[in-house]
């Protein structure tokens, strides 16, 4: 999905290989500006300006309206010593990590299966991509019911003790339900990327390996995985970005509970806003953005190192 990012600027390569169609005039055709500038202006107003506002207000004590005063770095200082904020970050990072691992293992496994010699390929693929087309909040409500009614009922009927209690009501286990449902919904996207990736692996490589009598596991580890490593990293990057912003699935499943066991950063930001903690949550947002960006950059670097070398 974002393969091109890690290879640097895509159009760059293009222009180098192949000169652009017209290079005779030094002046740019006005039409190009007409195509680009309005988009840039809208983008700046809708994206850049709010980001700048957010950073600005994070140095104030604004409650979202009315007068405010500058408080310097106070919001940030309090933020870093606030255990509630730290635990929210802890939960979010841990949750994102678990989900990324689960999604990728499942999606890769399914992709291997779906590109193998199987029957009903089209039907199966259609089914596995289905979660992608439904809204997260709705699916969270459905699973909320499944976890709090259907599974405990089945547990009672079959006499399976641990299933009789709703997992959502257990502060120590509720996060698992969030990982499962998020993974359920995010899996198709990773699956499609893996299917695309597996199709780029040339057949003859396997044939050569087949002659050597390599086992399926060794083939996967030593041939397939290195060849699709770029796709793995893309999935990890996209996954982290999406899961760090987790909100609606948690809202539908546990609403951050029991207690504060499953509160995510996004939930804290929104809740703070409703409660008039505008400036403080702006500081939180800014930090959150920097963390998201840092994680993405580290991963991009890794990708570049891997595929470039």
């Amino acid at each position, binding site marked *: 999905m974002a393969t091109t990012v890690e290879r640097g600027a895509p159009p760059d390569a293009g222009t180098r290989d192949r000169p652009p169609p017209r290079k005779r005039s030094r002046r740019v055709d006005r039409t190009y500006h007409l195509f680009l500038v309005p988009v840039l202006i809208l983008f700046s107003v809708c994206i850049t300006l709010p980001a700048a506002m957010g950073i600005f207000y994070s140095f104030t*004590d604004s*409650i*979202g*309206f*009315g*007068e405010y005063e500058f408080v310097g770095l*106070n*919001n940030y200082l*309090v933020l870093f*010593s*606030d*255990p*509630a904020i730290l635990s929210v970050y802890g939960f979010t990072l841990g949750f994102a990590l678990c989900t990324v691992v689960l999604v990728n293992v499942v999606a890769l496994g399914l992709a291997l299966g779906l590109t193998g010699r199987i029957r009903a390929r089209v039907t199966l693929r259609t089914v596995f991509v289905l979660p992608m087309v439904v809204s997260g909040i709705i699916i969270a409500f459905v699973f909320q019911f499944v976890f*709090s009614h259907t599974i*405990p009922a089945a547990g009672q009927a079959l006499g399976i003790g641990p299933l009789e*209690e*709703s997992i*959502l*009501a*257990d*502060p120590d286990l509720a996060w698992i339900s969030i990982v499962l449902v998020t993974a359920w919904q995010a899996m198709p996207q990773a699956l499609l990327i893996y299917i695309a990736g597996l199709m780029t692996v040339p057949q003859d490589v396997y044939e050569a390996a087949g002659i050597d009598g390599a086992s399926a596991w060794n083939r996967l580890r030593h041939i397939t995985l290195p060849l699709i490593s770029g796709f793995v990293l893309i999935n990890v990057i996209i996954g982290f970005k999406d899961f760090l912003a987790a909100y609606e699935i948690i809202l539908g499943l546990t*609403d*951050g*509970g*029991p*207690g*504060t*066991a499953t*509160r995510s950063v996004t939930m804290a930001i*929104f*809740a*703070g*806003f*409703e*409660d*008039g*903690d*505008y400036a*403080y949550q702006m500081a939180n947002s800014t930090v959150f953005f920097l963390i998201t960006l840092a994680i993405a950059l580290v991963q991009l670097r890794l990708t570049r190192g891997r595929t470039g070398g």
Partner: protein
Amino acid sequence: MISAGRGAPSPLPRFSRRAALGTMAGGALASVLAGCGSGGGGTRVSLHQSKPEAIPYFGDLLEQFNDEHRGSIHAVHDISANLSSGFARGNPPDLGCLNYNFEMLRFQERGALSDLSDLEAEANIAPEVRELVEHFPTYPGRTSVIPYSMMAAAVLYNEEIFAEHDLEIPTTYSGFIELCETLQEAGVDPVYSTYADAWTVSQGLIDYSVGGSIDVPAFMDELRDLGPEAGPDAPVSFSDTLREPLEKMLRIASFSQPGAAARNYGDGNVAFARGEAAMYLQGPWALTEIDRIDPGLPIGIFPLPMTEDPDDAGVRVHLDLALWIPEAASRPDEARELLRFLIRPEIADPYNQANLGFGVREDAPDVTDARLQDLQSYVDRAAFYQGISQALPGTIPFENYCQAIVTGQSLEAVLRTLDEDWARLARR
């Protein structure tokens, strides 16, 4: 248009995001109401009123108002907007009619609400009700809100079950525990709890047990006086003051039905209406829900006794509705006109009667609902308190902490966190 289920808004101690969304109630209804906007001419004035149970009622009231002011003022019903966003967008409602709690404080504190002192005489608010407003820090020299409706909550009990087991209403804490034990021995679940909805825990178990044990406003005043010195080891702290009441609360909570952690408000109403438990710690808003399932169920109400002195008992009250006009209102004069219309006794009294609220005027009539009459004497002699959950700023996730306590987290640890949160807020 009755709300049930997760985050039923009216009894919500705080104006959470969930409540804000929940209070949006019927989109269908909203459209009908919004549709009224095109009807009459005149200056448009908006009323923000989002208590879901009362939305149709206020819709009718506005119609009446618009009829009276045909051609000059036209009031529209705004049930949707959440308050923070409205203020942030710079277009708050002209007149607000909402639950009065700590959340209003930040609007009040920053002077976002205009002075209504000239209307005080007309509103004729009972002194003990006015005192409830003053439990929160107000904006100096201003009357920022005018109370409209007060709700009293206590323990609902199933009279049939009580009669069947020959039980009397307990007036002491030990009596209450004894009663629970008797019920349990008889195979009846004494209390129905719904921990999956955090607000039901704070509203019921927590507020009743704390309010029945300590003087909440005095405690909060002491805490505020500490300023940044507050903390778990300060002379006054949550850890110290709330510990005993909440330990008693946990004893009561242990009489809940099995699996309470996975049950929500909707489940609770259904179960109590079906006679699955003897008692239910909910406010009068739940009566409306229970009526829908079993209108004939004989229900009584009594305050939760938390001490050994029967005279200590009191009921939990909150200002379910209070009126205010933002400084930034675009039509303050018309908003005043609408406010005066709403506080007329012939408008306000029937409202409270229909919605199981207590009147706030000095000369307000008694409640007529038979079940609520059990509480009238407490209200009359001001044997009531505002829940502690109402007194904490929304930035402290108090409801979630309450949920954590009853679902097995260490009470000590949660209270310590609460103290630290409070201290951090004071330092900001």
